[in-house]
């Protein structure tokens, strides 16, 4: 491929830094304001409630990441209900379920919600261990489902390669590892020895694989000097921290998340971990924002699951975000995380599809009509434009990550809105038609199509 410089390649990826909002999309609906369809509902609409099952972590260490999902969902439901409900008639009624009950119990609970409570839509779910279990069951039950997270590539690569009833809002998981690697290569291009600490389940392995393949392309010659695989839900990271330090890496990459991450960084401080090496995380700032204390190291790459942080797009640049953050804060007295944004946008995407379907066929649309309009749908949400890919029902928006900084304006540490890194998702994800690959399609796509950079 000849000489490829890192700078040229990063430019070709469309990486932007700072307060830019990538322009894209033509006519799309948005999450706020009365939509045009609403004024002219066609046909008679039944007034029975529209039942939605929302599953997320309400207990355990994952709740600090998961509970904001429920709050985002409720905020949207309350707003829609205040306008009379879906198509002005059908009020949203939410049934909640605790994801912490375990995968098998979650499968049972999804069945119960559909067959016993008669839910119309299933949404939520955080863990990548759960969507591959629940997705096929939703298809069996013919249950319209929009997963907020649980964003493993495995779901649409292998578990349900031809989805009909199931959709997913947040970015595909492989984007986490890739954007973390891109941000690392841009910020610390001299790193060579890399240590890893990841939760020992599908998400951690996915983050590890994609970080590794991307960093090998962007910073050739790096090597992995330590791999630590704590079990999800672990609160004691001391052995992993001391082993990582002993390996004398230039960089620690980690996808530990939720309450687990809070425990890890607090323990890391005691060992001066962050003074001894650079630190890149895929999802550290994915928790409810107030959970990251001011003692958290500044200037590290604090990932947000490549999705959304509440202060970006920055105030004044993108009104939908200003409005969303204010409403969310007024309602819950805290700032939203990417789950809140995902769950909130989910309901507005549903609303938009139902309204469009009504406009086309009149009356209350059946699931087939809603599905047809969800496929290929676009909506402007707080985070930016969201597109639902028609072939794999996967939501796509620009991938983002950022750098931690303390601000006197907030009692917790934030991501610096002036330094946010944004990449158009199409440049870091396998495109439609790319053959299914191992471990993921995006992995083989990067492996085969990205050049290895040969100079800075």
């Amino acid at each position, binding site marked *: 491929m000849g000489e490829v410089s890192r700078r040229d390649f990063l430019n070709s990826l469309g990486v932007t830094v700072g307060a830019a909002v990538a322009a894209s999309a033509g006519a799309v609906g948005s999450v706020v304001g009365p939509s045009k369809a609403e004024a002219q509902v066609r046909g008679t609409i039944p007034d029975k409630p529209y039942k939605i099952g929302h599953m997320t972590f309400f207990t355990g260490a994952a709740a600090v990441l998961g509970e904001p999902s429920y709050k985002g969902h409720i905020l949207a439901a309350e707003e829609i209900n205040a306008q009379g409900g879906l198509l002005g008639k059908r009020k949203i009624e939410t049934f909640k379920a605790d994801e912490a009950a375990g995968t098998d119990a979650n499968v*049972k609970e999804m069945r119960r919600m559909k067959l016993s409570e008669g839910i119309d839509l299933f949404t939520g779910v955080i863990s990548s261990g759960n969507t591959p279990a629940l997705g096929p069951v939703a298809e069996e039950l013919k249950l319209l489902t929009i997963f907020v997270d649980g964003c493993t590539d495995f779901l649409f690569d292998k578990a349900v390669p031809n989805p009909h009833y199931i959709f997913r809002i947040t970015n595909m998981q492989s984007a986490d590892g890739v954007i973390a690697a891109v941000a690392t290569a841009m910020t610390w291009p001299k790193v060579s020895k890399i240590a890893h600490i990841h939760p020992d389940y599908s998400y951690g392995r996915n983050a590890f694989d994609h970080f590794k393949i991307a960093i090998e392309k962007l910073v050739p010659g790096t090597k992995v000097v330590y791999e630590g695989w704590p079990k999800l839900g672990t609160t004691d990271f001391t052995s992993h921290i001391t082993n990582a330090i002993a390996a004398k890496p230039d960089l620690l990459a980690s996808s530990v998340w939720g309450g687990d991450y809070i425990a890890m960084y607090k323990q890391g401080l005691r060992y001066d971990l962050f003074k001894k090496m650079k630190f890149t995380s895929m999802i550290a700032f994915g928790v409810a924002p107030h959970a990251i204390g001011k003692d958290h190291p500044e200037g590290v790459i604090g990932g947000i699951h490549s999705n959304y942080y509440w202060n970006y797009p920055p105030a004044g640049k993108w009104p939908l975000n200003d409005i969303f953050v204010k409403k969310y804060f007024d309602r819950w007295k805290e700032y939203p995380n990417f789950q809140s944004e995902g769950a909130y946008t989910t309901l507005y995407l549903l609303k938009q599809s139902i309204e469009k379907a009504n406009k086309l066929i009149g009356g209350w649309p059946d699931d087939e009509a809603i599905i047809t309009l969800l496929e290929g749908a676009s909506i402007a949400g707080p985070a930016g434009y969201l597109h639902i890919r028609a072939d794999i029902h996967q939501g796509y928006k620009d991938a983002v990550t950022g750098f931690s900084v303390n601000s006197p304006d907030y009692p917790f540490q934030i991501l610096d809105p002036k330094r946010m890194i944004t990449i158009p998702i199409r440049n870091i994800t396998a495109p439609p038609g790319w053959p299914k690959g191992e471990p993921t399609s995006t992995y083989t796509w990067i492996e085969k199509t990205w050049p290895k950079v040969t100079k800075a």
Partner: protein
Amino acid sequence: MSPIPVPPKRVLLYTAPIIVLLFVLPFVVPPYEVTQLSYGLIFAIAALGFNLLLGYTGLLSFGHSAYFGMGAYGVAFMVKYLKITSMEALIVGGIVAATAVAALFGFLCVRYTRIFFSILALALSQVLWSLAFKFFWVTGGTDGLRVPTPSLLGVGMAPGQDKMAFLAHRYYYYVLVIFLVGVAVMWVIVHSPFGKALQAIRDNETRAEFVGVQVRRYRYMAFLVSGVYTGLAGALWVPLNGLTTPDILHWTFSGEIVFFTVLGGFQTFAGPIVGAVVFNYLKTFAVGYTVYWQMFLGGVLVVLVLALPGGIVGTAGRLVDRFRKAA
């Protein structure tokens, strides 16, 4: 284990209406309730096996998730690597896998009793859990392994048939028949000389040895039978659940099996059956209606141990006796 043996005729008289009810149920209750009952019956098979050790032999195993999980993973491996779809073959495979592990673990465990037995059983089962967890390229790790609908007696699911309808009818009857056979066989076992010998060991190990019972051998036999039952339950559970994950190999699931048995009453034959069915409803209800489901189940356990040590069946039996005496 009532002190006065119940004559078999009376047993049939009591159980016949229940059996009839179980057979007509799919025609009167919605499919969802039927699948719930299938879960309950499957757990009941595991609890029966478990109680052969606890109630009849006096050994408290905190490691029965191992045999349930081996039954389940045995089936999942056969589906994944051998592409077998016949449920009968899968059950045989699941039982063989569970029994092989029970033969090994039992050999080590029955050398001990009381807490040492319990902890050793727990520790060994945790080894299996960590293997299923860590060897993700074989076992799927926490994602588990999916098991599609198998064929029953050579007849698969009709194309386009609703999976829930299949589970709520054909699969339910399949489970029910196996359950009834399992109960009958267990009834024969505990009332046989072998069963009596186990009870003698439970009541007084030294005396049992003096009358010529080969204590360790009998315990080992009981352990194997227990493993077979629990493995059978695991094999039946996978198609119903659709997938198997390391959760069912974890010691907390062993705890649930103990919970079934204590809830129903481990001093009675029917206790574990009732306990398993009730627990399944209780947990589903708790998870569905409150995020404090763990606290709720914990509360039930505390009340049970403090106020109703005889469990549901034991307490019901006591109430009936009191009522009779009063009359």
